């Protein structure tokens, strides 16, 4: 084991120490903001440096990976012995870099964003704790250790969503996130036990090594296990039907949304599928389910994003949609592509959220100065902000181009690779072509709603109010600096895995090969000719361009009214006189119906009504109702108690004597 790889436990230690120190400061109510900043950010910087060293060490001697660093015997119970062990291999090292890197940047941003919050120390302690658990999740060498991280990030997400606890709705959002995650966790736990029953161990290396012998390809056992694992992933990564918590989770501070609900925690499901790629590759049905759920989620969330007014809600649905892409990637067996998109998405989505945070911060301050109670997150209250916030606007445009998939930006390459991989499997079954088509439509919608977001936020006239305009200004360097870093990454991030047709191709693909090669045997060999790839690239570019231009031409920021005087979405009267008469036909025939469906059917009925109402809240209400019923039975009368006792005893005696006398 290279010496630096042996240091990997330090990566965990620093955030944990940071959590303890900042937690103590918070609990003791010390006034030590400077110390909190130093500890909170410093822990992440150190952690990141160690992560770089680990990566370097691994790159120096990749042949012997995976390295397993066993800390101690955790649960020595019977045959189910579990070690507290960390695993360093190409996959976890890659994730290590992404997690520590993005977290570090977001920690720095938080210094500015949360600077005046009374719960500053508490915030940083939670954030450090989150990073700790996320790293446990990534580094765990067996399912139970991964589960610790898995649950831990859920807890931190819960605490951070409800961070501003004066608001009842926020606290409820936190609870919802936690409970939906727990539903997913049942899947994870069940999968874990089924794996143990079948293989007799839970350590990754052994499970993946023995799996080919323990399971029949496509058999019931492996299918059930992988489906259960995927249920876990659905809960954590906000896929249909367990996704509604993520938009609600936007109640938390914006850097939290950037870190937890965009860049790291929600991608844990994708990571887990990639980690267990052997198992999924052996279960074609499950894999296809993963891809299909991913594709449907991608499309669904993208349509819902079309009509949101809350800037963070747009980004939240966008995240759900992009996660769908990732699942599509890992579902079709393109594990490297999935991780690739995970990485680039971490960069550009964190950038988008932080940019949105910067805007909200500015607007919030402006409204604070004028004692206005306007909603600082509503895009109808923004507009033309590029005049006051040129840096933020530039960076967010870069991120938008990246997520939309404009050639040269990171998102272009990663999204294209997933689509190409899906397309390449089309000759197996036509269903993969359908998935590909869904992916392309989603890309179009993505381009549309992201451009819409940018136009309404940064272009056109300003709608925030006369007085407020004087207080609008660019965020301090401590916030724009992180944006700059992420913007650079959002541009160049694609270089780590250029597609095959370009030179220097596929570094990430080759890097991850030791991890993904286990599953390669079970996946069909796919090859796309260079010409097909060029066509696909060109097509993707076209779609992106179409979406951007379409949005640019069709949307009229000038006609938008601020939220306080916004009419009930009827105001197209005067627009008809507009010279873009053809546009209006399109607008009426295509854009408006889609928008209408997006808002009224998809969002209000399905999202809020069916999935939230019946799914999550419904089952909770059912449980509560049954609890209430049980509580009614507790009459307080001794007679009832004795009667039930005797009935129970009679049944018990009947059972024990075998129901026959």
């Amino acid at each position, binding site marked *: 084991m290279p010496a630096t790889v042996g240091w990997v436990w330090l990566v965990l230690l620093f955030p944990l120490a940071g959590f303890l120190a900042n937690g103590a400061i918070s609990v003791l109510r010390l006034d030590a903001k400077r110390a909190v900043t130093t500890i909170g950010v410093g822990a992440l910087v150190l952690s990141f440096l160690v992560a770089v060293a680990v990566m370097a060490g691994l790159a120096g001697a990749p042949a012997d990976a995976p390295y397993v660093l066993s800390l101690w015997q955790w649960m020595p119970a019977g045959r*189910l012995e579990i070690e507290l062990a960390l695993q360093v291999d190409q996959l976890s090292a890659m994730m290590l870099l992404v997690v520590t890197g993005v977290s570090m940047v977001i920690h720095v941003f938080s210094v500015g964003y949360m600077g005046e919050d009374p719960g500053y120390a508490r915030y940083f302690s939670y954030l450090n704790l989150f990073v700790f658990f996320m790293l446990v999740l990534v580094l765990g060498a067996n399912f139970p250790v991964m589960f610790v991280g898995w649950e831990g990030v859920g807890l931190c997400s819960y605490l951070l969503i409800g961070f501003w606890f004066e608001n009842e709705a926020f606290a409820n959002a936190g609870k919802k996130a936690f409970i939906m995650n727990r539903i997913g966790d049942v899947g994870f736990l069940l999968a874990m036990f089924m794996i143990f029953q079948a293989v007799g161990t839970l350590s990754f290396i052994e499970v993946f090594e023995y799996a080919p012998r323990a399971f029949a390809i496509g058999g019931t056992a492996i299918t059930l296990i992988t489906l259960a694992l995927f249920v876990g992933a659905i809960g954590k990564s906000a896929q249909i039907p367990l996704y509604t918590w993520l938009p609600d989770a936007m109640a938390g501070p914006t850097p939290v949304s950037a870190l937890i609900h965009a860049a790291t925690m929600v991608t844990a499901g994708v990571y887990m599928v990639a980690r267990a790629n052997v198992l999924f590759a052996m279960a074609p049905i499950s894999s296809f389910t993963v891809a299909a759920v991913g594709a449907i989620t991608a499309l669904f969330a993208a349509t819902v994003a079309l009509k949101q007014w809350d800037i963070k809600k747009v980004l939240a649905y966008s995240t759900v949609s992009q996660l769908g892409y990732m699942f599509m990637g890992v579902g079709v067996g393109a594990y490297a592509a999935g991780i690739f998109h995970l990485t680039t998405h971490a960069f550009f989505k964190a950038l988008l959220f932080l940019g949105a945070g910067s805007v909200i911060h500015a607007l919030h301050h402006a409204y604070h100065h004028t004692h206005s109670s306007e909603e600082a997150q509503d895009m109808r209250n923004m507009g033309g902000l590029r005049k006051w916030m040129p840096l933020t606007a530039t960076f967010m445009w870069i991120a938008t181009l990246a997520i939309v998939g404009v050639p040269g930006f990171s998102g272009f390459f990663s999204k294209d690779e997933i689509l190409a991989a899906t397309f390449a499997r089309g000759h197996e079954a036509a269903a993969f072509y359908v998935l590909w088509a869904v992916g392309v439509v989603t890309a179009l919608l993505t381009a549309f709603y992201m451009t819409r977001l940018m136009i309404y936020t940064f272009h056109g006239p300003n709608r925030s109010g006369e007085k407020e305009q004087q207080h609008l200004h660019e965020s301090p360097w401590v916030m724009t600096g992180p944006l700059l870093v992420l913007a650079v990454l959002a541009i160049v991030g694609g270089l780590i895995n250029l597609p095959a047709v370009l030179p220097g191709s596929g570094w990430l693909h080759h890097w991850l090969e030791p991890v993904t090669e286990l599953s390669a045997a079970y996946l069909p060999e796919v090859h796309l000719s260079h010409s097909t790839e060029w066509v696909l690239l060109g097509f993707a570019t076209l779609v992106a361009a179409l979406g951007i231009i379409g949005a640019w031409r069709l949307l009229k920021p000038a006609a938008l009214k601020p939220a306080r005087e916004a009419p009930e979405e009827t105001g197209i009267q005067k627009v008809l006189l507009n010279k873009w008469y053809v546009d209006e036909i399109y607008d009426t025939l295509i854009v408006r119906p889609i928008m209408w469906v997006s808002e009224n059917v998809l969002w209000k009925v399905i999202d809020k009504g069916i999935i939230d109402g019946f799914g999550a809240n419904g089952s909770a209400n059912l449980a509560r109702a049954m609890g209430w019923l049980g509580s009614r039975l507790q009459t307080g009368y001794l007679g009832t108690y004795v009667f039930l006792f005797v009935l129970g005893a009679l049944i018990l005696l009947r059972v024990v*004597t075998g129901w026959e006398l």
Partner: protein
Amino acid sequence: MWPVIDLGLPGGVALALLPELVLTGCALCLTILVAWRHRSEEDQLLVGYLAAVGLVLTAAVVVVFWVSDVRAGGLESMIALDGFRYLTDLIVLLGALLTVLLSLGYLGRERILVPEYFLLLLYATVGMMFMGGGADLIVIFLGLELMSVSVYVLAGIDRRSVFCAEAALKYFLMGAFASAFLLYGIALIYGFTGTTNLGLIYVQTATWVFQENTMLLIGIGMLLVGFAFKVAAVPFHMWTPDVYDGAPTPITAFMAAAVKAAAFAAMLRVLLEALGPVTVVWTEIVWWLAAITMVVGNLVALAQRNLKRMLAYSSIGHAGYLLTAVASGTDFGAGAFLFYAFAYTIMTMGAFAIVAAAGRRGERDLRVEDLNGLAKRRPWLALAMMVFMLSLLGFPGTAGFIGKWYILSAALEAQNGLLAVVLVSTTVISAGYYLPVIMAMFMKPPASDDAHEHVTVTGAARWVVAATAVVLLVLGVWPGPAMDVAGQGGRDLRPSVMITVSK
């Protein structure tokens, strides 16, 4: 080689009973002291401290026995000398000690000036030790009665409170009723095997050819009814919420932790050591009891707003988890029980310590909302409460998770996969009532500016809260040694011969 005590000799018996004798001796001395000084609050505190000393002393004796691994030499005996007994003793002694420490401040605040309180606590503990260590059904029955009679009185110790009196009455009537069932079971098993000694029953049931076995079956059924009542398994649980709710808070904690642990220990010992050969007969019943108990306990807890009642239902749910360990019917399950009982004793004691601290004098209803904003005013307390709630929930990194993991392993090893699924699912349900407590403390504003001003944790209780929270976290991360010890203790119940009998 371990020291051997010959139980055939009177001296040997006395030596084997040393822990119980020490504790009984302490209790008797205190009885005299109480008869003589029982007027002022100082007297009460003195008795309390002396009771704590007695418990620690006894625990020390048990530890000596346990470390030197004392074993019995004779065959037939009334009292077992094995690791399971020592570990059970330590768990109930710990439970009693924590209860005494909690009570010191609580009794003062509630103006319950009854030094006999501590005496009865000691007597109940003696009974529990006999339950965990009895190798004869009669010893176990008498231990159970000694414990019950003392706890009936403890539940109603505050004579000014009508709720206390009601709790005592309900507990007493139901308890006596259930005792009759238990006794009937003992009678039938005695009639079937001709003995009440657990080891001999094992031999008889193992060699007996199954033909007309109704007597044994009914006997086992009656026995299970009796134990199911004591461990609060559904549908024999109806007394639990009412009694837990009405009793003084430290006594509630005592009942939830120690009384339940002792009842489970006795149940496991009887089922494994005596009825091991007929495992198939009782595992099926315990399986059903476990499943129903988990579901009902956790569901009904969802509907509670009163914190104490919520914890009472939660303790029913936890009885279900422990029954899952019993349903595995193996010594591995016994090990899981020991670990979980220890963890549960600690977390439930901690949780009730905070419930006791957060209530006002004479105020019986402590609702979840009353904890709103506790984190702002009493951050350490809120933190500790969060640890307790997470541990009860079975969150990774706490002892509760390890315990559940242990139980699940036992269930899986015994091919009780479905029960494991029920356990995992009901754990999810339980998030629905543990989380609001955390939410109230951390995410809601205090009701008023002077909210939580009255929350006082006296010296001893403060240590209880801190120590229990820390132990839970340590056990969550580094449970290895404790699990080893528990597993060892469980293996002591391993039946010497395995004979499978078809029904």
